């Protein structure tokens, strides 16, 4: 009798051990057993980022982009209200300008440094001669200032592809909510698009300190 109960106890103990081990395995491995890469690859259901209700529209002027990103529509920051003295045709019309007002109206502050070496661009390669309120591409197509990415992308097509997907440029303030991204001209000065050299904001200590 005692032998029987001993055997039963042993069996019970073994069973408990097996259950414990299997539990431990699932508990420690539930997210970790598959690598994070597998988990990402398996996630094919689009996330409704409008669910994040705290990502509300920003108080900045945006326009609906004329292109798609990964099958969806998005917005870009508006450009026209950032240009001082827009519309250009207020000055660029048939009327004469007095010489003494000339200094105020010429764009003497613009440093043109776009294009390398002998391929420097000139004004009229982007600005339309006939209609100063729009940009123009090499095929003569008119492009709105708010959609300058259509013009920039004619040469910088690799950057544009990355920008559409999200590897170039950046979103405005939110990762969630409606997709609002910066326009080319939000970060780059179109007349001198390379980033300037400047002093860093601070410094970093070595890693092991």
């Amino acid at each position, binding site marked *: 009798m005692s032998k029987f109960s001993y055997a039963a106890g042993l069996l019970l103990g073994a069973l408990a051990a097996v259950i414990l081990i299997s539990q431990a395995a699932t508990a420690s491995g539930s997210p970790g057993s598959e690598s994070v890469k597998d988990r990402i690859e398996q996630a094919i259901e689009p996330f409704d980022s409008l669910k994040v209700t705290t990502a509300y529209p920003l108080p900045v002027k945006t326009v609906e982009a004329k292109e798609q990103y990964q099958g969806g529509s998005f917005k870009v920051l508006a450009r026209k209200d950032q240009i001082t003295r827009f519309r250009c045709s207020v000055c660029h019309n048939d009327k004469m300008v007095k010489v003494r007002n000339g200094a105020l109206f010429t764009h003497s502050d613009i440093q043109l440094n776009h294009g390398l070496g002998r391929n420097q661009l000139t004004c009229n390669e982007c600005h339309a001669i006939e209609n100063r309120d729009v940009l123009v591409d090499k095929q003569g197509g008119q492009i709105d200032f708010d959609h300058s990415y259509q013009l920039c992308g004619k040469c910088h097509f690799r950057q544009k592809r990355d920008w559409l997907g999200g*590897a170039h440029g950046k979103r405005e*303030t939110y990762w969630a909510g409606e997709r609002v991204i910066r326009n080319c001209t939000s970060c780059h000065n179109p007349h001198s698009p390379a980033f300037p050299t400047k002093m860093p904001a601070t410094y970093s200590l070595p890693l092991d300190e």
Partner: protein
Amino acid sequence: MDSGNNQIEKMQTENMPEKKSSRRDFLKNMSIAAAAGSAGLVVGGCSGTPATEKMGLKWEEYFKKHYRLMTQEEKDATVTRLERLAKLERGINVQISDQGPHEQVLFGYAFNISRCKGYMDCVEACVRENNLDRRTKTQYVRIFEMDPGQLDPSAGDGQYHHEVPVKNKFYMGVQCFHCENAPCIKACPTKATWREPDGIVVIDYDWCIGCRYCLAACPYWGRRFNWGDPEVPKDEINLNQHYLGNRMRMKGVMEKCTFCIQRTRKGKLPACADACPTGSRVFGNLLDPNSEIRFVLKNKKVFRFKEDLGTEPKFWYFMD
């Protein structure tokens, strides 16, 4: 025999919580009474003064649970106490959030090493957002100037003091990589640090004992220790705080990057990504196939730092 022993143990564990809580309540009541009594003596029998209130709140705080074991009511209660304490001790009106993770969200980060110019605006934004100690110059984010061919930031120079970018150098940022298989979590003896369901590795500052095992365990130098009480000028304190994020730390606890949990759980970008003027920092939901970060992982050359360690960091470097 065995099963009998098990049963006794089981009974004991079942009885434990009740016993423990009654002892806890007893101690708490005693201590509050003692605090009120002693404060009453000092201020001459006048109850309800700020000093008494502060002491009472501190006692309550001392006996609170681990964040993960708290019910929502208990979380709200401790947040209210901490807000009141900040008002009493520093005279500031902070809002401490205990917002939980969103479902179907796993945060990930990508850093473009061919586009970063080393301006370090991200470092400065992080210091201000997260109320980092100004005296010892604590930083979560670090940027290193690197020679071509190097891919180990410990060989880079972070203390450059010249105009950037320099020709033929590149810039590499490091911070906490929020590993899925994080060694720091395994090293913690008090379970004061853990990974949240949205992938952020956080610390319960009130449960950290300051042993710094996690600091030694992290292969990425991602963690910082408070050797003294952090000092932040009163008018520079960020009042939008999170319990697991940028609320004021104290002497003797660990802290680290939390992907700006107080911002990202509200749908905002982390402060570093928001401040970057070059667009080198991409942040988003790894479980969303339409997110920017997924585009980077799918279309760019990406790598992770020390991938061979199997820590599974959720921070990728990429180049154009």
